[in-house]
Structures are given as structure tokens and as C-alpha cells.
């Protein structure tokens, strides 16, 4: 029997290390340590319900396990064969326990290609990867030759998963045709979108697939050196990737004459300091060269002049993770999955006001509705869906009317958002869309490198305008300026960061213009989020004059005699909410 314990960063933060230890010690106490293996795997994706423990072969999926549960799992499930019902997933619809993850809404519509090994194998053991056909793709590529492999990649229709969606096969072909004494393969593991963690999960759960894919890439374009640019704040991914590299070297799957092909390839890690802009490939390359991490004008593209001026192919982690399977199963298999122009699957990081927060992988063409309602389990606390923001901080906010849009690169772009690296943040009726736009601009202002003026100054000005509006100081002219500025920044910025940073503003202007108008003309925030536009009011009917509010007001803004209705002086009130909390009669409201 195998017990798979999620070893992703999220579950580890919830003590999955301790779960492994306690499971092992409980098994040892029962003398079953040889029959049952406890294996720490990569992320299962269902982070909302983590830590996850999966028991095989009876395929039982335990959720929200704590180290204290280990004794019961071993005693009941392992020894007595009885599932621990209280740790099983409960179907939100019919309140039934579900033990097999296949039957959970969260997993039903998923198709795991990039995440195929995450939550299945022990990422620190190369044997388990090999047992799952690992490194056979590179062997197959050696047999078919570089040209044929590039053809396969082109035919598969795989597009870059980092956000741009550039056809991977074409990228490889261009790099293969530029001749140089040295070429490089770079893996972009500088996952910078807040909330997105698919690349981290792949590196933590299945590092060998990235190593194998980079080797394939190296062979196809004639590069013997690979570099992984990885965020220094991903210590677990770094550790597992390094272990994987060492193991691959030990097996001769990295190094000289790989599988007797005569092809040499090796790789090393480069650490990024966490600048968002370093996810842009030219900025990433400059950062690796020891230069300031800022983008340069393309062309020249890295395929022509990249790392140290040599032809360089840059792909992101998720793109690489798809490659070994495509080679093994063939381009036709892959291109049969997905939509017309976007093939395969895409991993999304579900977050926000949604029931099932986590990492999911679905075929391209799945609709937003399926993702949010079926996989995501709908909106938290039964609230109303308002918007979903795709594509990270510079994606757009899509609404109800977009819910049945099949997700792919082109549809998202057409709807005013983008694929990005796959962040998906769901907002409900309580979210103020002006504040949402401001929140994202705050991020891009912070992360702009400062090289080009539209992004450096323009985003700052956008942020200032949004701040004025949320404070109730905005004018109708400000709304016009907001739009013009956004369009110019989008049109004239140097790199992808500036070219997309106004998306949250433009998409909210398009889809929630009435909210902007309410802020500007009525000085009201319909969602009740903008502090400056709120007023605390005591309901004169409901107030019994208990004085609890007045006694707890930190600024003495509440006046009133005992047993008589109280009044809040809004000019003094700091809107801290202490009075609402203390009022037992629901007499204070925000208007």
C-alpha cells in the first residue's frame, strides 16, 4: 500500500512534513512499515482542502489532515480497512462523503497533462519518474532527430504557457536555425503573478519533466547548456530541482553522451530576486547576465541574440512540463485536446471568493462557468458572482456575460483580458471594481522597472487617478483621462508589463462603468468597499441608548444620552467599525 502525502509548499505550511512523520511512526508501531509506504509527493492542486493524504490502492482521498489524524488513519483505515469518514471530502450538493477524487467536482472536469505526475510520484526519487516513462521522450527524440522533433512540436500546436502564447515549435525552429558556437536553453521559473503557483508546483512535484524537456529542447536547437531562472523565494522547488538534477547526472541523463546519443547537455540554476518584470524574457536574460533586470527592445529576439549574446530559447516551466508527453504520445494526441487555436490543457490557480481554491488543469476551451462553478464549486458563502480576473495582475476583469466563453488565448484577448500565466481570481458582489483596478495598479507601479516613460510615470498617474476616484474626489474628466492614459500606456510601453498593466482599468471601465460613475457623480461606492465614501449611521428607531458604541468609539465620535438614540458625528468618525461590532441591536449601519 502507498500513502501519498502532499508535499507542495501550501500543504507543507500546514504541517504535511509532520503528517509523514506521524504516519510513519504509527505504521511502525503497528509493525506495518514494510507493507505501507509513505511518500511525499508534489501538489494535488486541491489546496483549499489541504493537506491531502491519498491512500492507494483503494484510492481514498483524505482532506484537511492534521498530524493528530495519523493515528486514526493508520488504526482504522490501514489496520481495519475502514475509511475515516470525517476526513473524506463532503460533496457540497448532497452532503455525501466522497472518498475517490475522481468523483469530486473539483477533479471531474480536470485533465492533468502538465501536472500528470504531481501528487503521484515522489519528486525526490528519479526511479519513480522513470517508472512513469520518464526520460523515454528524450530517447525517442534522439531516434527521430531534431528536425522531426521540432516538426512534432509545431504540429502539436503547443503555445507558450508563460502568457504570450507564442507557438513553441516555431520558437524552437527559429532558435535552431540561428547558428552559433554556443546556444542556451532557459527555463523561465520566475513565476511572478501574485497567487499563481503552477510553475512552483510542477518544479516541486515533477522536476524531472522539466529537466527532460529542457534536454529535448537543447537537442532540437543545438544547445548544450540549460539555465533555470528561478525565484529565490521558492526554496522547496529549488531543493527538489537540484536533487533531480543531481540524480539525472548520476544516471547519465544529464552530462556527456546522454543515452549513448553523443549529445551533451547540462544545466544549472540561477536565482532571481523576485522582480515581476524579470519574467519578461529579455529582462530575465539581463538579470542572469548580472545586468539590471530590465527589458530591451525586441527584435533582436533571444532566439537570435539572448544570453551572453548567443541564440537562446526561453520557455516557462509549464510549457516544458507538457513536452515529454507530447513527444511520447505524439502531436496528434495532444492537438486533439483543446480548442481550435489553443491546444492541450492549461493550469490555472483558482483564488478569490471561490469555494475550491487551488490548482487545476483543464483542456483549453473549457468555459469560465465550468471552471468557476463546477471545479471551483461556486462562490463562497452563497454570494453573487461579479467578475473573474484572468491573467495575473495585468489581466482584465471579465463578467457574467463572459462566463460561457471557452477559455483560450484568443478568446481571452478578445474579451479584453489575457491568459497570462494562469491566475484566476474570482470576485463577488462585495468587491468594488474601482478598488480592484487600483489594487492591481498598485502592484504594477511597484513592479515597473522604470525604463520606459509610459510605464514608469503613466502607471503611477493611473494609480493616482484611481485613488482620487475611490476617495470620492474624481471627476468625469478623470474618467476620460483614465481611458486615454490607459490606451497610450498599452500602446506605447516597451515590454509586456506596460503593454498590459492598464488592462484592469480598461476592462473595469468597459464592464463596470456604472460603478465608476457612482464613485464620481454620487460619491458612492456601490460595493461598500471604499472607506472614504462610507458613512456610519445609527438607526434612530433601533437604537436603545445602551451607550456601548459611544464607550467603545476610539475617537469619541458618538454622542447621545443614556436610553436615548445615539448619533455619530461623521466628521470625527474614522470608520474603524468598532461601534458596529459592539452594537447588540444591529442599529448601526454603513451607508
Amino acid at each position, binding site marked *: 500500500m502507498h500513502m501519498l502525502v502532499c508535499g507542495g509548499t501550501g500543504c507543507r505550511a500546514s504541517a504535511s512534513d509532520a503528517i509523514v512523520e506521524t504516519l510513519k511512526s504509527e505504521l511502525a508501531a503497528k509493525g506495518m512499515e514494510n507493507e505501507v509506504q509513505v511518500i511525499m509527493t508534489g501538489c494535488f492542486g486541491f489546496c483549499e482542502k489541504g493537506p491531502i493524504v491519498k491512500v492507494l*490502492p483503494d484510492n481514498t482521498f483524505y482532506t484537511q489532515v492534521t498530524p493528530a489524524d495519523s493515528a486514526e488513519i493508520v488504526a482504522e483505515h490501514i489496520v481495519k480497512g475502514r475509511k475515516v469518514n470525517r476526513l473524506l471530502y463532503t460533496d457540497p450538493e448532497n452532503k455525501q462523503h466522497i472518498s475517490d477524487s475522481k468523483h469530486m467536482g473539483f477533479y471531474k472536469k480536470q485533465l492533468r497533462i502538465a501536472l500528470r505526475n504531481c501528487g503521484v510520484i515522489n519528486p525526490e526519487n528519479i526511479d519513480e519518474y522513470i517508472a512513469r516513462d520518464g526520460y523515454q521522450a528524450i530517447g525517442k527524440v534522439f531516434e527521430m532527430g531534431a528536425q522531426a522533433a521540432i516538426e512534432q512540436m509545431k504540429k502539436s500546436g503547443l503555445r507558450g504557457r508563460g502568457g504570450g502564447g507564442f507557438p513553441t515549435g516555431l520558437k524552437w525552429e527559429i532558435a535552431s536555425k540561428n547558428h552559433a558556437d554556443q546556444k542556451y536553453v532557459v527555463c523561465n521559473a520566475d513565476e511572478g503573478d501574485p497567487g499563481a503557483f503552477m510553475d512552483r508546483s510542477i518544479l516541486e512535484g515533477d522536476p524531472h519533466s522539466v529537466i527532460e524537456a529542457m534536454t529535448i529542447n537543447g537537442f532540437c536547437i543545438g544547445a548544450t547548456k540549460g539555465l533555470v531562472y528561478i525565484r529565490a523565494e521558492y526554496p522547496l522547488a529549488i531543493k527538489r530541482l537540484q536533487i533531480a538534477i543531481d540524480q539525472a547526472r548520476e544516471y547519465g541523463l544529464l552530462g556527456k553522451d546522454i*543515452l549513448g546519443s553523443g549529445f551533451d547537455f547540462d544545466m544549472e540554476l540561477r536565482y532571481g530576486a523576485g522582480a515581476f518584470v524579470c519574467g519578461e524574457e529579455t529582462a530575465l536574460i539581463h538579470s542572469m547576465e548580472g545586468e539590471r533586470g530590465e527589458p530591451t527592445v525586441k527584435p533582436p529576439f533571444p532566439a537570435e541574440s539572448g544570453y551572453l549574446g548567443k541564440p537562446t530559447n526561453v520557455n516557462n516551466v509549464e510549457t516544458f512540463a507538457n513536452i515529454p508527453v507530447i513527444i511520447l504520445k505524439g502531436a496528434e494526441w495532444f492537438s486533439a485536446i483543446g480548442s481550435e487555436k489553443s491546444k492541450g490543457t492549461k493550469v490555472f490557480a483558482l483564488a478569490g471568493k471561490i469555494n475550491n481554491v487551488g490548482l487545476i488543469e483543464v483542456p483549453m476551451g473549457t468555459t469560465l462557468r465550468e471552471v468557476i462553478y463546477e471545479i471551483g464549486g461556486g462562490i463562497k458563502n452563497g454570494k453573487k458572482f461579479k467578475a473573474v480576473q484572468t491573467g495575473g495582475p495585468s489581466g482584465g476583469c471579465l463578467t457574467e456575460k463572459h462566463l460561457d466563453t471557452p477559455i483560450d488565448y484568443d478568446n481571452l484577448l478578445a474579451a479584453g483580458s489575457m491568459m497570462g500565466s494562469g491566475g484566476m481570481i474570482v470576485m463577488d458582489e462585495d468587491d468594488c471594481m474601482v478598488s480592484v483596478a487600483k489594487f492591481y495598479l498598485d502592484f504594477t507601479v511597484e513592479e515597473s522597472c522604470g525604463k520606459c516613460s509610459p510605464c514608469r510615470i503613466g502607471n503611477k498617474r493611473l494609480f493616482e487617478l484611481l485613488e482620487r476616484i475611490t476617495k470620492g474626489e474624481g471627476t468625469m474628466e478623470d474618467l476620460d483621462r483614465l481611458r486615454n492614459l490607459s490606451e497610450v500606456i498599452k500602446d506605447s510601453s516597451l515590454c509586456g508589463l506596460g503593454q498590459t498593466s492598464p488592462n484592469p482599468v480598461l476592462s473595469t471601465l468597459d464592464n463596470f462603468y456604472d460603478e465608476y460613475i457612482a464613485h464620481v457623480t454620487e460619491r458612492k461606492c456601490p460595493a461598500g468597499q471604499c472607506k472614504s465614501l462610507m458613512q456610519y449611521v445609527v438607526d434612530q428607531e433601533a437604537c436603545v441608548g445602551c451607550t456601548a458604541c459611544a464607550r467603545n468609539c476610539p475617537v469619541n465620535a458618538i454622542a447621545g444620552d443614556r436610553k436615548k438614540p445615539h448619533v455619530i458625528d461623521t466628521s470625527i468618525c474614522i470608520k474603524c467599525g468598532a461601534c458596529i461590532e459592539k452594537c447588540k441591536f444591529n442599529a448601526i449601519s454603513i451607508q
Partner: protein
Amino acid sequence: MAKVKSLADLKKMKEQLQSKVDLREKGEDPESRVQVKVAMATCGIASGAKTVMDYFLEELDKRSIDAVVTQTGCMGYCYAEPTIEVKLPGQEPVVIGYVDVKKADEIIEKYIKNGELVDGIIPMNYNTIDNQ
């Protein structure tokens, strides 16, 4: 660790390693496989269930039978320990009592390989939550 020298080497290696992770792929769909559950409660262990379980694990693997061997708790037939439950794909499970190594061999050869019933089958008279 020796280096993997060729694709053929790698494939050979994969074959050897396959069983290590087989459980995980097939575990996703246990219905398609032979399932052997050995009752491993105190009563079963006392009667030699552990030896029986190890035997099934080793022998099924050796005889290349695609099977899942798991332990389970007391089935209630303490008088007939060690007891095992065998479920062939698409068939109702059968419970067999008084299983020792010799009996186990017979079960593999006759029932698992050819579907011939063996002696010692205990009629089932309850449902488990799994087959509800």
C-alpha cells in the same frame, strides 16, 4: 549508481521500476484489477495472516498477475482466520477462510488464474460502505 547508457537500458529499467508506482496508476481504477484483501486484525495476524499477505505480494508479482493486495480489518470470521477476500474484475468478491501458504498457492492458480472456485469459501452476508 550505474549510468543509463541507452534507450533500451532505460526501458528495461522502467520495466523493473514499474511495479513501484503501478499502484498509483492502477489504484485510480481498482475495479479493473484483481483485488486481494487480507484480514489483518489481531485475530488474523495471530493466525499467520502476515505470512499469507507477504506470500500474495511476492507470488502475484512473480507470476505477473496484475493484482492489488491490501490489508483490511477483521472480517468477523475469526474462527476461520486467516481469511482473505478476493475480487476478480467485474465479479462479486468472495471470502475464503483458513488460508495458509499452500491454500494461497491454490487460490492463485485456480481461482485467480482460471476462475475455478476453491474450498473454504465463506458466504458473504453483509455489505461494506464501499460496495454500497
